[in-house]
């Protein structure tokens, strides 16, 4: 994968993880992966393994926290939740994303607006 696309992908993956945790509360790694696949309407086929390095980076930045908990089958699983700093970051990134798409959209609209 060329470098820029990977960066964009990782950036969006981080955004998706934060949004997921913001909306749904504490989830373990598998849970986050399933949720992302669901929300994207199963159009996104990510290698679920890529989640874990992304989760690590988010944890290093202090935007999510983690602790052990019991999974659905009463086994040990690591649960992640968003932090307050993470919520702030999510808000900032959401705004950036909206602005970026807005600009691109202007260029892609029919040319009648540019007279």
């Amino acid at each position: 994968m060329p470098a820029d696309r990977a960066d964009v992908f990782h950036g969006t993956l981080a955004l998706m993880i934060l949004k997921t945790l913001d909306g749904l509360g504490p989830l373990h790694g598998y849970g986050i992966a399933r949720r992302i696949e669901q929300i994207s309407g199963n159009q996104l086929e990510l290698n679920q393994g890529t989640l874990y390095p992304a989760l690590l980076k988010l944890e290093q930045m202090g935007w999510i926290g983690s602790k052990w908990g019991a999974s659905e089958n009463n086994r040990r699983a690591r649960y992640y939740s968003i932090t307050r700093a993470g919520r702030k970051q999510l808000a900032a990134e959401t705004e950036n994303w909206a602005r970026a798409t807005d600009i691109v959209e202007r260029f892609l609209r029919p040319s009648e607006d540019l007279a």
Partner: protein
Amino acid sequence: MMPLRRFAARIAALFRTGASDARLAEEIAEHLALATEDNIARGMAPDEARAAARRSFGGVLRTTETYREARGFAALDGLRQDVRYALRGYRKTPAFTLVALVTLTLAIGANTAIFSLLHALVLRDLNVRDPRSLVQLTTSTPTSPDSLISYPMLQRLARDQQVFSSLMAWWGFAGLNVDTGGEQTTGMVAAATGNLYDELGIRPAAGRLLEPSDMTLDPPAAQPIAVLGHTFWQRHFHGDPGAVGRTIRIETVPFTVVGVAPPGFTAFGLTAEPDLTVPLAARPLLNGRSIASLTTSATLSYLVVGRLKPGITLDNARAQLMTIWPAVREAALPPDYAGARRDDFLATRLSVTSAATGNETSLRTRFTRPLVVVLAIAGLILTIACVNLASLMLSRAAARSHEIGVRLALGASRWRLARQMLTEGVLLSLAGGAAGMLGAVWACRALTAFIFEEYLATVTFDASPDLRVIAVTIATATLAGIVFSVVPAWRATRRSAAEALQQSARTGTAAGRAGRILVATQVALSLVLLATAGVLVRSLSTVRSVASGIERSDDVLIAYPWGRAGGFDGVDNDTYYPELLRRVAALQGVRTVSASLLKPGTGGAFRELVAPIGEPAILERGVSSQKTPVAPGFFAAVGIPIVKGRDFSWSDRSSAQRVAILSESLARRLFGGREAIGQRLRMGLQPQDPALEVIGIVSDARLYNVKSANLLAIYTPALQDPQANYKCLVIRGAVPLRDLKRAVESLGRENLDRMVTLRYISERALLQDRLTAMFSTFFGALALLLAAIGVYGLMSYTVEQRRREIGIRVALGADARRVMREVVSDGVSVTLAGAAIGFAAALGSVQLVQALLFGVTPHDPVTLAAAPLALLLIAALACAVPALRAARVDPMTALRAE
């Protein structure tokens, strides 16, 4: 740029990699388990469910790798891996590891110790405020080449100089009687100008230190004051702060203690702490003279140090001082000097040099060059050790070539492999360096104790490695590690994977060739070292065997009485001296006893110009001779034969006619073939000095410096010398110290505590030669050992490589002895090649140490023959074990193992 938070988290993660890896593994396992269960719930078969879960996940290994990369620092992780791998490898080959570590410890440790000593003695700045701006003033006269400044000169300089922001003066030491109020003892006393402590930034340990207002000359202060040295304070006052304010007596003169100097304060010297420091103005009191006499004193005994004004350089200062110097000298000329003495004084030259590293001329003159030579030899040993290790590492790498090939085939980059080998090398050398450093600390302490063994003053010379030396050691160790692993590392990266996987004969001999070059180089360097070390050792043995003309044995004892406070008041030496020697002669075991004003065996300090009477121009035409005032019986005591005339007797007393005894060489020089007995001569610069009549001639003797060929000696009766009481007793025979002490102290004027043999003094005088020879022997033996290891390693490797070939030959009926002989001759031929080159280089290297040699030419035939022979012999012996191994090769196993 990585945010700080993430950076900190990554640093923290370095220490928890184990736990972190376990956690990730558990998370992944749980993830896959949950995914599998979901798939089963959707209707897949268990196997298919598991497979599908894995597929959705992607590569587990890949995830783990990416995770690890995000967690820590890739480079550090790699380094940690390399280190772990290296340690594992070293554990598997304990013999090699041990040899390598010991070699490196000795080589690096020796370099560190010697460099540390040299650094402390010669290179290190004084531990005072801003040492680089300090400048010292010294003088030299025709009769006294190593001299200092007189007090009148100091006064005049202080008035007229323009380049110093402050001017300090220091006088020291004199061993004087001190009454501490609780005990009678001796102390090394120094004197200083009041501004010295403040200017150097020294703070007191108790009380206060000298101040500029202490003891002015005019008006003379009421009671003199003194500052205690720290060790003296501990030893005699038990560190009691109440010592401040007490009155002590130095040579019966009362002084008030005002404070204690901090530990380790040695003023401008490097070695000894003064026991007591008094103001400069109080100095004459110690001799029983008045303070006012200072302004007319003519002795050149003060070290003057100035601090340069900002912006003034040493050259500026020198220029200005040289212009005012003639006037200073003129003003300081004592009015009663006349004739030659006056001329001598007016010829005094001023020297202006940096005082940043302190004033320690005699130690430096003695030890600097020998230490530099020994350091060079130590550096050579380190180089030899590196070459040795390079060849051993090469064999080691060749043995691992299969494993290297596998790693290359699996995609490891060449740089990664090379980095691995460099890490191995640097790890080894840093470990050796650390151990060597510990050894060096111990060695420095031992050497310092050895060098200063007989010092009377409190020695605080600290030669242990300081930060600068440690930094140099670490850098050297790292560099050494890189140097000796660069060859194997380079070879490892050159070959392709296919080559490395093959155990081909081609790669075998290629490594063998590199190994041979390394061993030959090592042998060459070893020969250079052996030759140089050899001539230095021979030099010492030659010095020891020189006929000195005196009895430098345990049969001659030298004892140093010192006068009690006021002990010599009113003494009549004409009666005291004979009585003292008579009482000592009466002791059992004493065969002959005499006295001398100079300690035989070392030093020697009275130089006088001597000329036949009537010679007007004594300054130009006088013969510079070594003068020794002695008592009757001296020559018998030290073993100098009287050739003509008579010895001194007690009738040559202070009121009698002045007489002298000459050495044969001096008599010949002064009077040619004429009869010297009965001739009269002049000695010294004062025209009004009485003439001396020659009454005897003695054999030439190297009484003081065995290496010096100056045999022009003149002896005068001790009773006719104003300094008669500063004597040492010279005894032929054997007597216990306590008997001698009782006899000397029974007269009530002197105390006696020390006695040594003339052999001991002579050996101490050769200290620098002995140290050089000792190190040379040590390094020579080490070089031989390393050469043996190198040759052994090479031949072992060669035999191993050619095992198959040897097996075939033995199977075809080759004689086992022949095989052995070939191995030995192979090893010897490599050694010969190296020795030939080394010999040529050695011819040059021995020339470099010529200045240290005595009685031995640099191209000493004994050394130049013995060194290569020793190397060849050692090499042949080192080949013995591999040769035996070659002879015992079983053809069946050799051919099978492929």
